[in-house]
Protein backbone atom coordinates (compact mmCIF):
# COMPACT_ATOMS: atom_id res chain seq x y z
CA UNK A 1 0.00 0.00 0.00
CA UNK A 2 0.96 3.67 -0.21
CA UNK A 3 1.66 6.15 2.55
CA UNK A 4 2.91 9.73 2.45
CA UNK A 5 4.59 11.13 5.49
CA UNK A 6 7.22 13.65 6.46
CA UNK A 7 10.34 12.39 8.16
CA UNK A 8 12.76 14.91 9.60
CA UNK A 9 11.24 17.60 7.44
CA UNK A 10 11.47 15.64 4.21
CA UNK A 11 8.43 14.29 2.40
CA UNK A 12 8.49 10.53 1.83
CA UNK A 13 6.18 8.52 -0.41
CA UNK A 14 6.35 4.90 0.61
CA UNK A 15 5.01 1.84 -1.14
CA UNK A 16 4.97 -0.75 1.57
CA UNK A 17 3.66 -3.98 2.96
CA UNK A 18 0.65 -3.35 5.22
CA UNK A 19 2.57 -5.18 7.93
CA UNK A 20 5.49 -2.77 7.92
CA UNK A 21 5.86 -0.98 11.22
CA UNK A 22 6.95 2.62 11.45
CA UNK A 23 10.15 1.31 13.04
CA UNK A 24 10.99 -1.06 10.19
CA UNK A 25 10.06 1.56 7.60
CA UNK A 26 12.52 3.97 9.19
CA UNK A 27 15.30 1.42 9.57
CA UNK A 28 14.97 -0.79 6.53
CA UNK A 29 13.32 1.46 3.92
CA UNK A 30 14.38 5.00 4.75
CA UNK A 31 17.83 3.99 6.04
CA UNK A 32 17.30 5.95 9.26
CA UNK A 33 18.91 3.42 11.55
CA UNK A 34 19.31 5.70 14.52
CA UNK A 35 15.93 4.51 15.77
CA UNK A 36 16.69 1.21 17.47
CA UNK A 37 14.92 -2.10 17.77
CA UNK A 38 15.41 -3.44 21.27
CA UNK A 39 12.36 -5.53 22.08
CA UNK A 40 9.98 -4.87 19.16
CA UNK A 41 7.03 -5.04 21.57
CA UNK A 42 6.81 -1.68 23.35
CA UNK A 43 8.71 -2.84 26.40
CA UNK A 44 12.02 -0.98 26.14
CA UNK A 45 11.59 2.42 24.47
CA UNK A 46 14.64 2.15 22.20
CA UNK A 47 12.42 2.92 19.19
CA UNK A 48 11.01 6.16 20.60
CA UNK A 49 10.34 8.77 17.89
CA UNK A 50 8.29 11.93 17.77
CA UNK A 51 5.10 11.84 15.70
CA UNK A 52 3.52 15.26 15.34
CA UNK A 53 5.67 16.26 18.30
CA UNK A 54 4.50 13.40 20.52
CA UNK A 55 6.76 10.55 21.62
CA UNK A 56 5.61 7.05 20.74
CA UNK A 57 7.09 3.56 20.31
CA UNK A 58 7.67 3.18 16.57
CA UNK A 59 7.62 -0.60 16.92
CA UNK A 60 3.94 -0.67 17.88
CA UNK A 61 2.72 1.45 15.02
CA UNK A 62 2.10 0.55 11.41
CA UNK A 63 3.54 2.96 8.92
CA UNK A 64 0.08 2.86 7.31
CA UNK A 65 -1.30 4.63 10.37
CA UNK A 66 0.95 7.63 9.74
CA UNK A 67 -0.27 8.99 6.43
CA UNK A 68 0.27 12.73 6.56
CA UNK A 69 2.11 12.62 9.87
CA UNK A 70 5.30 14.46 10.70
CA UNK A 71 7.88 12.13 12.15
CA UNK A 72 11.09 13.30 13.80
CA UNK A 73 13.82 10.78 14.61
CA UNK A 74 17.18 11.15 16.29
CA UNK A 75 18.65 12.04 12.89
CA UNK A 76 16.33 15.05 12.74
CA UNK A 77 17.26 16.71 16.00
CA UNK A 78 20.62 18.28 15.22
CA UNK A 79 20.94 21.40 13.07
CA UNK A 80 23.69 20.46 10.68
CA UNK A 81 26.82 20.00 12.76
CA UNK A 82 25.30 21.63 15.82
CA UNK A 83 23.89 19.08 18.18
CA UNK A 84 20.46 19.53 19.74
CA UNK A 85 20.97 20.73 23.34
CA UNK A 86 19.71 17.37 24.61
CA UNK A 87 22.21 15.49 22.42
CA UNK A 88 25.00 17.74 23.64
CA UNK A 89 23.92 17.23 27.26
CA UNK A 90 23.92 13.45 26.87
CA UNK A 91 27.43 13.65 25.43
CA UNK A 92 28.73 16.02 28.10
CA UNK A 93 27.17 14.16 31.03
CA UNK A 94 28.17 10.74 29.63
CA UNK A 95 24.52 9.74 29.71
CA UNK A 96 25.21 6.72 27.54
CA UNK A 97 27.41 3.67 27.38
CA UNK A 98 26.66 1.10 24.70
CA UNK A 99 24.55 3.74 22.99
CA UNK A 100 21.77 1.47 21.80
CA UNK A 101 19.03 3.02 23.92
CA UNK A 102 20.45 6.52 23.50
CA UNK A 103 18.51 7.79 20.47
CA UNK A 104 15.27 6.70 22.12
CA UNK A 105 16.28 8.29 25.41
CA UNK A 106 17.10 11.58 23.72
CA UNK A 107 13.90 11.71 21.66
CA UNK A 108 11.96 10.77 24.76
CA UNK A 109 13.63 13.45 26.87
CA UNK A 110 12.94 16.17 24.30
CA UNK A 111 9.25 15.27 24.18
CA UNK A 112 9.05 14.77 27.93
CA UNK A 113 10.00 18.39 28.63
CA UNK A 114 7.25 19.51 26.30
CA UNK A 115 4.73 17.26 28.07
CA UNK A 116 5.62 18.84 31.39
CA UNK A 117 5.35 22.32 29.92
CA UNK A 118 1.88 21.38 28.69
CA UNK A 119 0.92 20.32 32.19
CA UNK A 120 0.51 16.60 31.58
CA UNK A 121 0.62 14.74 34.90
CA UNK A 122 2.63 11.64 35.69
CA UNK A 123 2.60 9.04 38.39
CA UNK A 124 5.05 11.24 40.28
CA UNK A 125 2.75 14.26 40.21
CA UNK A 126 1.58 14.63 43.78
CA UNK A 127 -0.76 17.55 43.18
CA UNK A 128 -2.88 16.73 40.15
CA UNK A 129 -4.53 20.14 39.93
CA UNK A 130 -1.54 22.35 40.68
CA UNK A 131 1.34 23.45 38.52
CA UNK A 132 3.80 20.64 37.79
CA UNK A 133 7.26 21.10 39.20
CA UNK A 134 9.97 19.25 37.31
CA UNK A 135 11.52 17.45 40.27
CA UNK A 136 14.08 14.69 39.86
CA UNK A 137 11.32 12.25 40.83
CA UNK A 138 9.20 13.56 37.94
CA UNK A 139 12.05 13.20 35.45
CA UNK A 140 12.82 9.66 36.57
CA UNK A 141 9.19 8.57 36.38
CA UNK A 142 8.58 10.21 33.03
CA UNK A 143 11.72 8.63 31.55
CA UNK A 144 10.84 5.16 32.79
CA UNK A 145 9.55 4.07 29.40
CA UNK A 146 13.15 4.03 28.21
CA UNK A 147 15.16 1.15 29.60
CA UNK A 148 18.94 1.56 29.75
CA UNK A 149 20.53 -1.76 30.60
CA UNK A 150 23.98 -0.19 30.89
CA UNK A 151 22.18 1.80 33.58
CA UNK A 152 23.26 5.33 32.76
CA UNK A 153 20.18 6.60 34.58
CA UNK A 154 21.99 8.98 36.98
CA UNK A 155 23.80 10.60 34.06
CA UNK A 156 20.61 10.70 31.97
CA UNK A 157 18.93 12.57 34.80
CA UNK A 158 21.88 14.94 34.99
CA UNK A 159 21.75 15.53 31.23
CA UNK A 160 18.03 16.31 31.26
CA UNK A 161 18.46 18.49 34.33
CA UNK A 162 21.19 20.46 32.59
CA UNK A 163 18.84 21.21 29.70
CA UNK A 164 15.73 21.82 31.77
CA UNK A 165 17.39 23.97 34.41
CA UNK A 166 16.80 23.84 38.14
CA UNK A 167 13.52 22.91 39.80
CA UNK A 168 11.16 25.89 39.85
Amino acid at each position, binding site marked *: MHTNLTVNGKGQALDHD*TRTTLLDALRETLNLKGTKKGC*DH*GQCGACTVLVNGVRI*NACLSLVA*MHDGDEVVTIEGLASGDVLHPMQQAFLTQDALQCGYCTPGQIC*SAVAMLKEVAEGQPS*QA*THDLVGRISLTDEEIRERMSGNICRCSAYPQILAAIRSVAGDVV
Partner: protein
Amino acid sequence: MKPFTYERPKDIASAIKAMRANPAAKFLAGGTNLLDLMKSEIEHPPHLVDIGRLPLAAIENTRDGGLRIGAMTTNTQVASDARVRSLYPVLAQAIVSGGSAQLRNKATTGGNLMQRTRCAYFYDTAKPCNKRLPGSGCAALGGLNRNSAIFGTSDACIATNPSDMAVALAALDARIETLTAEGATRSLAVADMHRLPGDTPEIETELKSGELITSVIIPPAPPGGQIYRKVRDRASYAGALVSVAAVGGRVAWGGVALKPWRAEKTEAALVAGIEIPEAVGAELATAEPRGANSFKITLIGRLTAAALGETLAGRRA
Protein backbone atom coordinates in the same frame (compact mmCIF):
# COMPACT_ATOMS: atom_id res chain seq x y z
CA MET B 1 2.48 -11.28 11.18
CA LYS B 2 0.22 -12.89 8.63
CA PRO B 3 -0.62 -10.66 5.68
CA PHE B 4 -3.69 -8.48 6.11
CA THR B 5 -5.47 -5.70 4.33
CA TYR B 6 -5.90 -2.27 5.82
CA GLU B 7 -8.38 0.53 5.50
CA ARG B 8 -8.95 3.80 7.29
CA PRO B 9 -12.61 4.72 6.97
CA LYS B 10 -13.49 8.39 6.93
CA ASP B 11 -16.44 8.24 9.28
CA ILE B 12 -18.05 6.07 11.90
CA ALA B 13 -20.72 4.70 9.59
CA SER B 14 -18.08 3.52 7.12
CA ALA B 15 -16.15 1.86 9.94
CA ILE B 16 -19.21 -0.07 11.05
CA LYS B 17 -19.94 -1.01 7.45
CA ALA B 18 -16.38 -2.20 6.91
CA MET B 19 -16.65 -4.53 9.85
CA ARG B 20 -19.99 -5.84 8.67
CA ALA B 21 -18.42 -6.66 5.34
CA ASN B 22 -15.62 -8.60 6.98
CA PRO B 23 -16.59 -10.11 10.33
CA ALA B 24 -13.08 -11.45 10.92
CA ALA B 25 -11.67 -7.93 10.70
CA LYS B 26 -10.46 -6.05 13.75
CA PHE B 27 -10.67 -2.45 14.73
CA LEU B 28 -7.24 -0.85 15.04
CA ALA B 29 -7.02 2.14 17.35
CA GLY B 30 -3.68 3.03 18.96
CA GLY B 31 -2.32 -0.39 18.11
CA THR B 32 -0.23 -0.72 21.26
CA ASN B 33 -1.90 -4.00 22.21
CA LEU B 34 -3.28 -5.36 18.93
CA LEU B 35 -0.02 -4.95 16.99
CA ASP B 36 1.89 -6.51 19.85
CA LEU B 37 -0.47 -9.49 19.70
CA MET B 38 -0.20 -9.70 15.92
CA LYS B 39 3.59 -9.65 16.07
CA SER B 40 3.41 -12.36 18.69
CA GLU B 41 1.30 -14.49 16.31
CA ILE B 42 -1.59 -14.46 18.77
CA GLU B 43 -3.98 -12.36 16.68
CA HIS B 44 -4.29 -12.93 12.94
CA PRO B 45 -6.91 -10.53 11.61
CA PRO B 46 -7.17 -10.68 7.80
CA HIS B 47 -8.30 -7.06 7.69
CA LEU B 48 -7.72 -4.02 9.88
CA VAL B 49 -10.14 -1.14 10.12
CA ASP B 50 -8.14 1.80 11.45
CA ILE B 51 -10.48 3.88 13.61
CA GLY B 52 -7.72 6.01 15.09
CA ARG B 53 -8.77 9.14 13.25
CA LEU B 54 -12.53 8.87 13.69
CA PRO B 55 -14.08 11.92 15.34
CA LEU B 56 -14.33 10.25 18.73
CA ALA B 57 -11.56 12.12 20.50
CA ALA B 58 -13.49 14.72 22.45
CA ILE B 59 -14.04 15.02 26.18
CA GLU B 60 -17.38 16.71 26.87
CA ASN B 61 -19.37 17.67 29.93
CA THR B 62 -22.59 15.75 30.36
CA ARG B 63 -25.76 17.49 31.49
CA ASP B 64 -25.72 15.79 34.87
CA GLY B 65 -22.24 17.05 35.67
CA GLY B 66 -20.28 14.05 34.50
CA LEU B 67 -18.00 13.57 31.52
CA ARG B 68 -18.31 11.87 28.16
CA ILE B 69 -14.92 10.68 26.97
CA GLY B 70 -14.58 9.79 23.32
CA ALA B 71 -13.27 6.30 22.69
CA MET B 72 -10.40 7.58 20.55
CA THR B 73 -9.03 9.96 23.14
CA THR B 74 -5.52 8.93 24.08
CA ASN B 75 -4.72 7.83 27.59
CA THR B 76 -2.49 10.89 27.93
CA GLN B 77 -5.26 13.19 26.79
CA VAL B 78 -7.68 11.83 29.39
CA ALA B 79 -5.20 11.88 32.26
CA SER B 80 -4.21 15.45 31.36
CA ASP B 81 -7.74 16.83 31.07
CA ALA B 82 -8.30 19.44 33.78
CA ARG B 83 -11.81 18.13 34.50
CA VAL B 84 -10.59 14.57 34.86
CA ARG B 85 -7.81 15.66 37.18
CA SER B 86 -10.08 17.67 39.44
CA LEU B 87 -13.29 15.58 39.35
CA TYR B 88 -11.86 12.09 38.87
CA PRO B 89 -8.30 12.06 40.22
CA VAL B 90 -8.58 8.30 40.67
CA LEU B 91 -8.88 7.97 36.91
CA ALA B 92 -5.93 10.24 36.17
CA GLN B 93 -3.83 8.33 38.70
CA ALA B 94 -4.81 4.97 37.30
CA ILE B 95 -3.99 5.98 33.75
CA VAL B 96 -0.57 7.43 34.52
CA SER B 97 0.35 4.32 36.50
CA GLY B 98 -0.06 2.20 33.38
CA GLY B 99 2.53 1.49 30.68
CA SER B 100 4.91 4.30 29.76
CA ALA B 101 4.39 7.82 28.47
CA GLN B 102 5.09 6.58 24.95
CA LEU B 103 2.39 3.92 25.22
CA ARG B 104 -0.12 6.27 26.84
CA ASN B 105 0.42 8.80 24.06
CA LYS B 106 -0.77 6.24 21.55
CA ALA B 107 -3.15 4.01 23.48
CA THR B 108 -6.81 5.02 23.37
CA THR B 109 -9.62 4.87 25.89
CA GLY B 110 -11.53 2.30 23.84
CA GLY B 111 -8.43 0.28 23.12
CA ASN B 112 -7.39 0.28 26.75
CA LEU B 113 -10.73 -1.31 27.67
CA MET B 114 -10.29 -3.92 24.94
CA GLN B 115 -6.73 -4.94 25.78
CA ARG B 116 -6.16 -8.60 26.40
CA THR B 117 -4.47 -10.34 29.28
CA ARG B 118 -0.69 -10.20 29.79
CA CYS B 119 -0.58 -13.74 31.15
CA ALA B 120 2.85 -15.11 30.18
CA TYR B 121 1.29 -18.36 28.97
CA PHE B 122 -1.21 -16.51 26.78
CA TYR B 123 1.73 -14.70 25.20
CA ASP B 124 3.73 -17.86 24.58
CA THR B 125 2.22 -19.58 21.55
CA ALA B 126 4.09 -22.78 22.36
CA LYS B 127 2.04 -23.26 25.51
CA PRO B 128 -1.55 -24.40 26.02
CA CYS B 129 -4.00 -21.55 26.56
CA ASN B 130 -7.76 -21.81 26.34
CA LYS B 131 -8.02 -18.14 25.65
CA ARG B 132 -5.69 -18.30 22.68
CA LEU B 133 -6.56 -21.80 21.49
CA PRO B 134 -9.85 -22.98 22.99
CA GLY B 135 -9.65 -26.51 24.32
CA SER B 136 -5.85 -26.59 24.55
CA GLY B 137 -5.81 -26.22 28.34
CA CYS B 138 -4.55 -23.62 30.79
CA ALA B 139 -0.80 -23.73 31.36
CA ALA B 140 -1.04 -21.21 34.19
CA LEU B 141 -3.22 -23.52 36.29
CA GLY B 142 -0.40 -25.88 37.20
CA GLY B 143 2.32 -23.43 36.31
CA LEU B 144 4.15 -20.36 37.51
CA ASN B 145 1.02 -18.45 38.48
CA ARG B 146 2.25 -15.78 40.85
CA ASN B 147 0.55 -13.17 38.66
CA SER B 148 -2.72 -15.02 38.14
CA ALA B 149 -6.23 -14.18 39.27
CA ILE B 150 -7.80 -14.94 42.65
CA PHE B 151 -11.40 -14.00 41.88
CA GLY B 152 -13.82 -15.29 39.30
CA THR B 153 -11.45 -17.87 37.90
CA SER B 154 -12.36 -21.17 36.31
CA ASP B 155 -10.49 -24.34 35.55
CA ALA B 156 -10.24 -23.04 32.00
CA CYS B 157 -8.47 -19.76 32.74
CA ILE B 158 -6.93 -17.87 35.65
CA ALA B 159 -5.65 -14.85 33.72
CA THR B 160 -6.07 -11.24 34.80
CA ASN B 161 -7.17 -8.12 33.00
CA PRO B 162 -4.16 -5.78 32.73
CA SER B 163 -5.95 -2.42 32.55
CA ASP B 164 -5.38 0.14 35.28
CA MET B 165 -7.80 2.62 33.73
CA ALA B 166 -10.67 0.13 33.74
CA VAL B 167 -10.30 -0.40 37.48
CA ALA B 168 -10.79 3.31 38.14
CA LEU B 169 -13.68 3.49 35.67
CA ALA B 170 -15.37 0.54 37.37
CA ALA B 171 -15.12 2.26 40.74
CA LEU B 172 -16.56 5.41 39.20
CA ASP B 173 -19.59 3.49 37.86
CA ALA B 174 -18.62 4.52 34.35
CA ARG B 175 -20.47 3.11 31.35
CA ILE B 176 -19.44 2.55 27.77
CA GLU B 177 -21.57 3.55 24.80
CA THR B 178 -21.29 1.44 21.70
CA LEU B 179 -22.51 1.26 18.18
CA THR B 180 -23.46 -2.23 17.11
CA ALA B 181 -22.83 -3.72 13.72
CA GLU B 182 -26.51 -3.08 13.00
CA GLY B 183 -26.05 0.58 13.77
CA ALA B 184 -27.85 0.59 17.11
CA THR B 185 -26.40 2.32 20.15
CA ARG B 186 -26.32 0.67 23.50
CA SER B 187 -24.78 1.25 26.88
CA LEU B 188 -23.04 -1.05 29.32
CA ALA B 189 -21.38 -0.61 32.70
CA VAL B 190 -17.58 -0.85 32.48
CA ALA B 191 -17.77 -3.27 35.40
CA ASP B 192 -20.00 -5.51 33.28
CA MET B 193 -18.31 -5.34 29.89
CA HIS B 194 -15.65 -7.98 30.56
CA ARG B 195 -16.68 -11.58 31.02
CA LEU B 196 -15.34 -13.97 33.55
CA PRO B 197 -13.63 -16.92 31.91
CA GLY B 198 -16.05 -19.73 32.71
CA ASP B 199 -15.78 -22.38 30.04
CA THR B 200 -15.23 -19.85 27.26
CA PRO B 201 -12.26 -17.68 28.20
CA GLU B 202 -11.79 -16.87 24.52
CA ILE B 203 -14.94 -14.74 24.69
CA GLU B 204 -13.65 -11.77 26.61
CA THR B 205 -16.27 -9.04 26.52
CA GLU B 206 -20.00 -8.60 26.08
CA LEU B 207 -19.35 -6.72 22.86
CA LYS B 208 -20.66 -8.38 19.73
CA SER B 209 -18.79 -8.83 16.49
CA GLY B 210 -18.25 -5.48 14.81
CA GLU B 211 -19.48 -3.49 17.78
CA LEU B 212 -17.60 -0.24 18.32
CA ILE B 213 -17.04 1.52 21.64
CA THR B 214 -17.76 5.16 20.92
CA SER B 215 -17.43 6.72 24.34
CA VAL B 216 -17.12 6.24 28.06
CA ILE B 217 -19.57 8.13 30.25
CA ILE B 218 -18.63 8.90 33.82
CA PRO B 219 -21.38 9.99 36.16
CA PRO B 220 -20.72 12.72 38.74
CA ALA B 221 -18.31 11.52 41.36
CA PRO B 222 -19.80 10.45 44.67
CA PRO B 223 -18.71 12.29 47.79
CA GLY B 224 -15.60 11.15 49.59
CA GLY B 225 -12.01 10.75 48.57
CA GLN B 226 -10.58 9.01 45.53
CA ILE B 227 -7.38 7.06 45.40
CA TYR B 228 -5.66 4.61 43.07
CA ARG B 229 -2.85 2.49 44.47
CA LYS B 230 -0.92 -0.04 42.45
CA VAL B 231 1.60 -2.55 43.75
CA ARG B 232 4.15 -3.95 41.37
CA ASP B 233 7.59 -5.48 41.24
CA ARG B 234 9.22 -2.40 39.69
CA ALA B 235 8.67 1.28 40.48
CA SER B 236 7.36 2.07 36.99
CA TYR B 237 6.58 0.57 33.57
CA ALA B 238 5.27 -2.71 34.98
CA GLY B 239 1.92 -4.37 35.34
CA ALA B 240 0.14 -4.56 38.65
CA LEU B 241 0.51 -7.39 41.10
CA VAL B 242 -2.67 -5.90 42.54
CA SER B 243 -4.24 -2.47 42.45
CA VAL B 244 -7.14 -0.76 44.14
CA ALA B 245 -9.37 2.12 43.11
CA ALA B 246 -11.26 3.49 46.08
CA VAL B 247 -13.91 6.13 45.47
CA GLY B 248 -15.53 7.06 48.73
CA GLY B 249 -16.77 3.70 49.92
CA ARG B 250 -16.62 2.08 46.50
CA VAL B 251 -13.86 -0.36 45.80
CA ALA B 252 -12.57 -1.86 42.55
CA TRP B 253 -9.57 -4.14 42.30
CA GLY B 254 -7.09 -4.74 39.51
CA GLY B 255 -4.71 -7.63 38.96
CA VAL B 256 -7.01 -10.08 40.72
CA ALA B 257 -9.52 -11.13 38.06
CA LEU B 258 -10.16 -11.22 34.35
CA LYS B 259 -12.16 -8.04 34.82
CA PRO B 260 -11.95 -4.99 37.04
CA TRP B 261 -13.31 -6.50 40.23
CA ARG B 262 -15.86 -4.50 42.18
CA ALA B 263 -15.62 -5.63 45.81
CA GLU B 264 -19.36 -5.53 46.29
CA LYS B 265 -19.37 -7.42 49.58
CA THR B 266 -16.91 -4.92 50.98
CA GLU B 267 -18.99 -2.01 49.77
CA ALA B 268 -22.17 -3.48 51.23
CA ALA B 269 -20.47 -4.12 54.54
CA LEU B 270 -19.23 -0.55 54.68
CA VAL B 271 -22.74 0.72 53.98
CA ALA B 272 -23.93 -1.51 56.83
CA GLY B 273 -21.47 0.26 59.11
CA ILE B 274 -19.01 -2.58 59.46
CA GLU B 275 -15.42 -1.59 60.21
CA ILE B 276 -12.96 -1.42 57.32
CA PRO B 277 -10.88 -4.54 58.06
CA GLU B 278 -13.94 -6.77 58.38
CA ALA B 279 -15.58 -5.15 55.37
CA VAL B 280 -12.52 -5.87 53.24
CA GLY B 281 -12.40 -9.38 54.65
CA ALA B 282 -15.96 -10.02 53.49
CA GLU B 283 -14.90 -9.87 49.86
CA LEU B 284 -11.57 -11.59 50.41
CA ALA B 285 -13.37 -14.59 51.85
CA THR B 286 -14.52 -15.43 48.32
CA ALA B 287 -10.99 -15.47 46.86
CA GLU B 288 -9.66 -18.66 45.29
CA PRO B 289 -5.87 -18.68 45.28
CA ARG B 290 -4.08 -21.06 42.95
CA GLY B 291 -0.81 -21.49 44.81
CA ALA B 292 1.86 -18.93 44.15
CA ASN B 293 -0.68 -16.11 43.94
CA SER B 294 -2.15 -16.53 47.41
CA PHE B 295 -0.12 -13.54 48.62
CA LYS B 296 -2.46 -11.35 46.56
CA ILE B 297 -5.25 -11.94 49.08
CA THR B 298 -3.28 -10.44 51.94
CA LEU B 299 -1.77 -7.78 49.76
CA ILE B 300 -5.02 -6.49 48.27
CA GLY B 301 -6.60 -6.61 51.70
CA ARG B 302 -3.94 -4.46 53.33
CA LEU B 303 -3.80 -2.11 50.36
CA THR B 304 -7.56 -1.67 50.33
CA ALA B 305 -7.85 -1.09 54.06
CA ALA B 306 -5.21 1.62 53.82
CA ALA B 307 -6.87 3.20 50.78
CA LEU B 308 -10.33 3.18 52.35
CA GLY B 309 -8.90 4.73 55.48
CA GLU B 310 -7.97 7.68 53.32
CA THR B 311 -10.96 7.91 51.00
CA LEU B 312 -13.53 7.57 53.77
CA ALA B 313 -11.73 10.41 55.52
CA GLY B 314 -12.30 12.39 52.34
CA ARG B 315 -8.75 12.49 51.09
CA ARG B 316 -8.25 12.92 47.37
CA ALA B 317 -5.29 11.63 45.39
